[in-house]
């Protein structure tokens, strides 16, 4: 009994996102400081045949980077969507609420501490550290949200938390041992570079398991969109549900921060764009679409980051900010106009 036109819209939206993703993947594979002909690339991708350097560039540098951008971008968008559901406000996101920055701070601390003692930091440790940081920031945000009724104040607090964390991180990096600074510095600005297959498989495992759980929560998330009262009446265990939202969104944004550093505004801009595209907020559609959309968005941003001023690379966060912040500003202005 669902409207046919509406159904068609969903199909087209998903196809469009998938198509964009495929195009961007090909485009990204094909672009970089070393230029390769399409024929060579096809050969390398399908048959793993070709020149050693080319093989290495495609398989060990470009592909992991592309996959990371998709997985992490998707994770970030879904994390944003969960936070927006939690706070009942479309301007909530892991970056504005200071959660990414909190994760960044703890990761830097752990890295500096361990590297200083000559211990290599594994990806798992990074994720754990980032998760811890995300939870600490989230704790602050929640404490504040109990005291302030207005969402705008909460966002201001989140931004402040973000600034404090970033400042402390910068401070730490400035005084860290030289050998690690370059690496740490790049990471702390946000970048998809330097990720290998091991990283990709770990992030894929964490993100996909989390997304699987999130997807199966789309029913209570849908009920929660009508407000806590109605959700409770529907039989949703509100305490458990809210806890799950916090944990899942923190895991996702922590995973992103651990691998690529803080990435701004994707968590707000993408869910908004996706919802406008689908013309619905139904979680069962928005969650997968957010993942796809986040992948598309980050892949595109990463493409810009590494090609516009090549060989110099921009930090991914500057690019996402330039593209994402206007969307966020537009949303705020529109909401203000509606008197909310």
């Amino acid at each position, binding site marked *: 009994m669902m409207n046919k036109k509406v159904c068609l819209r969903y199909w087209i939206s998903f196809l469009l996102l998938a198509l964009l993703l495929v195009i961007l993947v090909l485009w990204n594979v094909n672009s970089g400081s070393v230029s390769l002909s399409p024929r060579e690339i096809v050969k390398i991708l399908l048959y793993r045949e070709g020149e050693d350097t080319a093989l290495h560039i495609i398989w060990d540098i470009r592909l992991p980077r592309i996959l990371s951008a998709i997985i992490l971008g998707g994770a970030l968008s879904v994390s944003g969507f969960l936070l927006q559901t939690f706070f009942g406000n*479309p301007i909530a996101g892991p970056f504005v609420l200071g959660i990414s920055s909190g994760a960044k701070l703890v990761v830097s601390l752990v890295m500096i501490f361990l590297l200083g003692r000559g211990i290599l930091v594994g990806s798992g440790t990074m994720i754990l550290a980032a998760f811890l940081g995300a939870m600490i920031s989230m704790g602050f945000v929640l404490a504040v949200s109990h005291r302030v009724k207005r969402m705008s104040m909460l966002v201001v607090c989140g931004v402040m938390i973000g600034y404090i964390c970033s400042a402390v991180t910068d401070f730490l990096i400035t005084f860290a041992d030289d050998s690690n600074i370059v690496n740490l510095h790049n990471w702390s600005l946000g970048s998809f570079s330097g990720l290998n297959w091991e990283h990709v498989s770990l992030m894929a495992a964490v993100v996909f398991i989390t997304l699987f759980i999130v997807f*199966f929560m789309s029913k209570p998330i849908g009920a929660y969109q*009508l407000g806590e009262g*109605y959700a*409770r*009446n529907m*039989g949703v265990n509100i305490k458990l549900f809210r806890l799950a939202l916090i944990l899942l969104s923190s895991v996702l944004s922590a995973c992103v921060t651990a691998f690529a550093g803080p990435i701004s505004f994707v968590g707000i801009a993408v869910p908004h764009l996706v919802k406008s595209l689908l013309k619905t907020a139904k979680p069962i559609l928005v969650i997968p679409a957010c993942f796809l959309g986040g992948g598309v968005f980050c892949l595109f941003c990463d493409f810009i980051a590494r090609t516009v001023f090549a060989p110099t690379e921009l930090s991914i966060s500057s690019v996402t900010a330039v593209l994402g912040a206007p969307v966020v500003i537009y949303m705020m202005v529109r909401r203000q106009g509606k008197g909310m």
Partner: protein
Amino acid sequence: MKEFYIYTQNMTVGYGKQPLIEKIEIRLRRGEILTLIGPNGAGKSTILKSITRQLSLLGGTVYLDGRSLEEMSGREMARRLAVVMTERIRPELMTCQDVVASGRYPYTGRLGILGEEDWKKVHEAMELVYAGDLACRDFSQISDGQRQRILLARAICQEPEAIVLDEPTSFLDIRHKLELLTILKQMVREKRLAVVMSLHELDLAQKISDQVVCVHGNVIEKYGAPEEIFSDSYIEKLYGMTRGSYNAAFGCLEMEPAQGSPRVFVIGGGGWGIPVYRRLQREGIPFAAGVLHENDVDYPVAKALASRVITQRPFEPVGEEAYLQAAQVLKSCEKALCPIPVFGSMNERNHKLKELALRQGILLDNPGKNTYNER
């Protein structure tokens, strides 16, 4: 207790650990409407939230369908009890149909996808509240009246046996208030629903409810059929009214009368007096009204607004005694008004009063004009 669909035993409600209202005992059968009335902040919403498990009880038990609410799973409760809450919701990008469809939650599978049967129920519910044409409209862009109807449809779509509504008529204009309550009453009759709700409109509460609960000052002050509850003096006490009065028979409010000895005498009756009384009250002029039969429509209004009312027992012609009293008062007034155009056998003496006023030279002939304040 089996006959009752919702009942409470020794229920104590409140926020946090502070009990607000204690020992609440309500009993409700299916097909009945129970209405909570009482001043703002008395705890009506607190009671409703406790019955719907939005707030945990501080004591006692709520039984739904013969079982303690606390032992029920979320889904079991959702299939029996639906709510319409007072907080305004503004979900993002949801059509009215989506909002109504959310009522199917306790019947759908793990992913919450609605089947053919579910959509049929959604459309049925929307038709029941006469909102079929709103299906594809954005929920945040419809009027308050439509919104309440959609939320009612959502509750109906949940196929409950009881619905709890918290001030469903707030924000609605009179047409939509009546419309909503009429639909609700119809549902109650057709689907044998048990309804618990809070209302601010006493007149409507009186007309629609089978039982009324008066919440006042941390207790249930009165509980019974509307006939037992609605007396002028009790309602004034319940709301702590100090200015003006409440008329239970008409369910209307009257402002407080002007103070002082009467300056204008109004010869009224048959409804002709009411607009004149109201006008004098508005202009702050104390007046006397007479001679009115105690069953005249003018009488309750005159009683609320006049500083003096001279009356006659029902079904008797106006007698000599009442006439003399009225004449005495009239003579002491500065002006007299006679809005009634006709006299009959029952109020012959009022005609005499009019002539007396004329002889005294104080009768104003056109009560429609703003001439009372002339000195």
